[in-house]
């Protein structure tokens, strides 16, 4: 929450006075004046990235029926797709 302060100069009006010749008027405070504030909000945009909805991080998935995705030309290196869980604990 933010506190907004605004200094307001009192509105003045005129009144009559005595003790002078002719038509004399003085300036006096206007105690009945109403003050109205209009607050206009302006937006400052900040890019905080793309909001994903409620999804689960991708798991990599089961490796299908054959159990592997690929192998090298010697048929010796097979690639495992499925993500291990907690691999850093093996350190």
């Amino acid at each position: 929450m933010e506190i907004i302060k605004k200094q307001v100069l009192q509105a003045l009006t005129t009144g009559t006075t005595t003790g002078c010749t002719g038509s004399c008027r003085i300036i006096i405070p206007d105690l009945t004046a109403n003050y109205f504030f209009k607050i206009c909000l302006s937006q400052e945009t900040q890019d905080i990235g793309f909001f994903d909805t409620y999804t689960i991080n991708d798991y990599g998935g089961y490796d299908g029926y054959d159990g592997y995705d690929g192998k090298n030309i010697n048929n010796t290196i097979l690639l495992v797709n499925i993500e291990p869980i907690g691999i850093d604990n093996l350190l």
Partner: protein
Amino acid sequence: MKIIQSFYQIDNKTCYNIGGNNDNYLLNYYSMLLSYITIKEKYGEVAMYCNKLAYDKMLKYIPYDKIVLDETSIVDASNYRQEWGMLKFNVFSQQNEPFIHIDTDVFLFNDVLSGYINKGKYDGIVQSIEHDKRYGVYDSFYHANQENLIKYDFINDNLMKRSIDKYLTVIGYNNGVVGFNNLKFLEEYIESAKKLNDLIKAGVFVNVKNQTIIFEQFLLYILSQKNGYKIFEVLPEDDIINIGFNETGNKHGYTHLLSGNKYVKNFILLIRNKIIQNYPNYIKHIDEFEKTINNVNFTFLSHKDENHLMKNIVQKW
């Protein structure tokens, strides 16, 4: 709480089809040993259910607290690739008290089970929610079989739709850790798994990309959802959603080298080094096992993100 593991070796098969004729099943030894060590340290006793081939080749070099030798014919070489998960149900059907089954490729570096064991308010326990966006094992099965899943009373479809709205995909439970306080729930699970597997084999259900995943993991999710059973998830759903599976495991001291990960050479070396450095009392078991390894044909695997994963590990080190 009774903690069990199981391993049945059928010929030289592995649950991950490496292709060709090789001895890769022997590589399971390293994850089995580390799995046993970490569970033993935290929870005291581990019982292993196995067949003789698995025992003779690997398990006798691990000091389990109890061995239950069990020859079964429900899965053989002809249906192993599709139905290997039925071996687990064979073990489940032998249980008559609450238990937790932990896969032999799961390592518990922290006490992640006491929230389930001590509170006693849960019907069962699983590792976590799971989905498979890459191949759509869960999605394609559900969408292709929605009517039959309702017809054969496997799902409450309104709850399924709510779940899909929430996760934006069809999910199941990963059973790296799975257990039951509620034995009625266990009985229903075993019966439903047999029924679903039989219907799959009869061709009633289609788009079955991974048969075991469907009758084991998808089934556990839809059954507990339909019957309102309360499930404890070892890996919190919010963490999985926010930081992903691997980092959630890192955060909670829980490792699961699921599928082909346990045949990745660098990962095996990490396991072996971990045992040697952190659990030196078990080095003698590795020595005994490795003396038996002669003239073997190993086909080591690589992980598609191996450079990234290993770099992360080295940086933390």
